[in-house]
């Protein structure tokens, strides 16, 4: 099903840990959304900020969907302040969706939990390795357990990074499909740490985007077979394909 562009109202804005959870009314998303999809979310009747922001689907329900926003700059700050009843411009769902395995390993750094949480809803069970800077940032661990995921967490305040966590638990990963979402440096480090398991790993990539629709060629990422567009062939890529040079 092709993506659509619509103006949709925010119907809930609340905090989830340090992030903003925005629920948007939409009777149609449930029909089309699949694992791996993201949206371009724009500010209605604004030409400044000019660009919409790419955000992962977080939850999709009967008549609404939600996104989880970490405040990073001006755009995400504005999003976090959206009030109920305000409209957003929604283009999506976008990207190339995929069928996740019934079970597998998810590795999340910080806000990287957002697409992985959505992905977990398409799986039967699995393991989650999850690291954040601070304790308050660890969210959804109970919900993940309820989804039959074994959850291992770590914080930089107390113990180290998710890379340390993975290093300490490499046995748990053997033979499993691995899905990673987090900052670039974490991904790069994980590639090292995973070693031969990296062949089974997939990574959600982030890039600054213009259109989200394969139009502007701005979201290029270097792979073994040249530049690829995150918005079109991604956001999920095999970790072994991604070039870090």
């Amino acid at each position, binding site marked *: 099903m092709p*993506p659509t562009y619509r103006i949709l109202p925010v119907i809930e804005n609340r905090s989830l840990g340090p992030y903003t959870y925005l629920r948007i009314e939409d009777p149609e998303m449930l029909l089309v959304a699949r694992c791996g999809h993201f949206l371009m979310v724009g500010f209605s009747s604004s030409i400044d900020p000019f660009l*919409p922001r790419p955000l992962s689907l977080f939850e999709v329900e009967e008549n609404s969907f939600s996104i989880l926003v970490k405040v990073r700059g001006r755009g995400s700050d504005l999003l976090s302040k959206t009030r109920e009843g305000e409209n957003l411009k929604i*283009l999506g769902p976008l990207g190339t969706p995929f069928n996740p395995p019934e079970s597998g390993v998810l590795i999340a750094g910080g806000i990287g939990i957002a697409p992985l949480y959505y992905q977990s809803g398409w799986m039967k069970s699995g393991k989650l390795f999850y690291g954040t800077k601070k304790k308050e940032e660890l969210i959804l661990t109970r919900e993940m357990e309820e989804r039959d995921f074994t959850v291992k967490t770590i914080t930089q305040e107390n113990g180290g990074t998710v890379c340390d966590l993975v290093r300490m638990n490499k046995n748990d990963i053997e033979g499993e499909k691995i899905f990673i979402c987090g900052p670039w440096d974490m991904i790069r480090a994980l590639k090292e740490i995973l070693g031969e398991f990296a062949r089974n790993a997939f990574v959600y990539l982030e890039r*600054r985007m213009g259109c989200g629709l394969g139009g*502007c*060629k701005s979201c290029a990422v*270097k792979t073994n077979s040249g530049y690829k567009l995150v918005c079109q062939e991604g956001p999920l890529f095999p970790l072994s394909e991604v070039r870090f040079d």
Partner: protein
Amino acid sequence: MIDLSVNLSGIKLKNPVILASGVWDLPYREIIDFDRLGGVIYKGVSLKPKEGNPPPRLTETPCGVINSIGLENEGVMNFIEEILPTLKESNTAIFSNIFGESIEEFSKLSSLIRDVSGIEVNVSCPNVDKGGLLFGKDPNIVYSITKSVCNETDLPVIVKLTPSSANIVEVAQAASDAGASAISAVNTFQGLVIDIETGKPLLKRGVGGVSGPAIKPLALYNVYQIAKSVDIPVIGSGGITTYQDALEYFFAGSSAIQIGSAIFNNPLAPIQIIDNLKKWMERKGYKNLKELKGKYE
């Protein structure tokens, strides 16, 4: 009944709203009804595929965007064999935008392309090391390129100009003298964004091209000057997001307009501009664009 059709030196469009080069690709057909558009200009193609510039390639500026895509494209043969047939499914005028690093490459490209409503010659890209606006700043080179393209093709030739030239009217005149059917004005403005975390330019090449509403008054001034001075029609481009912007361009002398970055902000902008233009003309009692402008047909 409002008649929005325009005739650009023989190029007939059902309305004056054209999707600009480089901001869209085939997937946009799922969002924008191409059948409603006056025309679409495919992104710049070169003889051989080009991989484009290293990322980041684009970021936001106040009321605009800056890009350094570097003309990533899969080459002219891919355009002819894969893209054009698909685009032909839509009932709209299709234009090809070509980019060469030498006059010979421009000739070769134009000899290969057929079966489109016109060829837009891109001598105005700020994001490449060879050709691009280095060509477009020089009236003599623009004359030569235009001439050689016109020699190779019977298709209408549109020359797309850069605002970075010292005297854009002179360049437009050169294109017109060499046989261009129309002028596109303007491509992006050279700009710079610094990443304050690193103290270095955010885009790897330093300079990028700025587009979007921010540049509208600047681009409009270029269009106004060109339209006053050359006889061939001008296709206005730069920061158009609403029908009011479109009207400014018509009053300034453009015969048609291109919608570029606006589709990032609002993919339906081109369609809404057409609809709202119609409504405005109805309200004001205009029947066609000729009445509105008078200046060009």
